[in-house]
């Protein structure tokens, strides 16, 4: 990802309540699945990035719970749930 400081600043404006455990996980062994590559481009919070080993990693902090990656990757690749009640992003304006 090129310059994402803009994005980080924007995400920093949101109210997030800490999520105890990640609500979205890449299923073990599927880190190189091509569907994950597409999530790099589709996630509006830029949470999917390519690391130096050429595998995709997911940073859950900042998740907007929009559902895009579930539609991009499908449930074979992602174990996808909403965060537990009362945690995660809390939109004040929406």
């Amino acid at each position, binding site marked *: 990802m090129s310059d*994402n400081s803009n994005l980080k600043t924007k995400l920093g404006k949101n109210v997030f309540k800490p999520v105890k455990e990640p609500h979205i996980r890449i299923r073990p062994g599927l880190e190189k699945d091509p569907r994950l590559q597409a999530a790099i481009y589709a*996630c509006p919070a830029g949470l999917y990035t390519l690391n130096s080993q050429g595998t995709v990693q997911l940073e859950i902090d900042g998740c907007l719970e929009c559902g895009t990656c579930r539609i991009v990757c499908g449930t074979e690749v992602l174990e996808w749930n909403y965060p537990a009640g009362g945690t995660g992003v809390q939109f004040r304006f*929406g």
Partner: protein
Amino acid sequence: MEKFEVIIVGAGLAGLSAAYTLAQNGIEAVVVERGDYPGAKNATGGRLYLNPVKKYLPDLWPALLEEKALERPVAVELLTMIAPETSTTLRFRSGEFATPPYHSFTVLRGVLDRWLAKKAQEKGALLVTKNRVEELIRENGKVIGVVAGGEELGAETVIACDGVLSFVAEKAGGRTPGLPRNYAVGFKEVIELPSRRIEERFALGENEGAANLFLGSLTKGRFGGGFLYTNRSSISLGMVLRIQDLMDVHPLQEAPRFLDDFKARPEIAPLLAGGETVEYSAHVLPEAGFGGLIRPFADGLLVAGDAAGFSLNVGLTVRGMEFAIASGVLAARAFRQAREKRDFSASSLSVYQKFLEESFVWQDLKTFQHAPRFLDNPRLFDHYPQLVGEIFQSLFHIGEDPKQRLFATVKGKVGWGEAWAVLKDLRGGFKI
């Protein structure tokens, strides 16, 4: 396990409209919401058209307007075609839209959903926040309750208003995870600006609002567009892009960059100057229209709002919230009818389908069923905004040489081949 007559999953507009209607009829309804408060997980562009929903929640008028649950009445509609070097805007102002009873309002869901929840609670509906529905409880195939926050809650009927991904409908077997070509992602910033400044920048009267849609090169050949809505003291600026196109239209580009580039455009940047971004939100939207609908009822289950796929993009208008409100109310009415017979089987609850078919929800989706195919034309999002820009550029342009006649100027841009292609594209449009 604790039992209620109805459990509603999700305190969005569908769920709260259902809760309000049920409570009003003396039916015991509990809304289970995973956010800290209603609206905490919801986002809209957005704007609400009033006419379709007035008769569904008649006694909430005029409180909806008086108690400031909505932002600004949209008096000015703008449509902007964006090309790399040009932009062409159509500005439409309507006196009728600007005066009571008003046509549409800009909306912030953090405000509207909390207001509607309060109204439903005043009627007697129960609201449980900070609780995520984890499982459906079923007996012989019939839905008889949910597990929320580790606790079992029973109900005669569950109404799934849990949004575009609807895990409830999915768990009930009524739908499968969606495909990228049938969904778009919308993402936006809310940018605070003093209300007087908004009125000056958009040439609006006091408390009047503007809605601006943007088509063209801002999506770089992808299905989608941009939007700008003026709220009371903020601007909602965002984009909608089809998920499939983010995955496979080249050159690939990260979604957030589209919005950054859009914000930096000379048409947009001055409108936002001095404003402060206070929130960045995103949400998936159903884009399949009529073709994407599911059967919205089963034994002990009704599905309303985005969860049922009730959303309609006709290009100039993009609607979801009216469908959510109406379908929530109709689901409540269907339950009331089933309750008279003490029968909550699929065949008894299927009266919901009948109510939907008699309403604008089903009829609009059906009327515009060809819209997704017409809109699925890259020329609309790339070529035409560019062409319109070129035509105006050459009409306005004065060069060194004597100027050509106007018709010849236009014909130079729109030759026979182009005219033929326009006709072909229009033919698809006539089906809308």
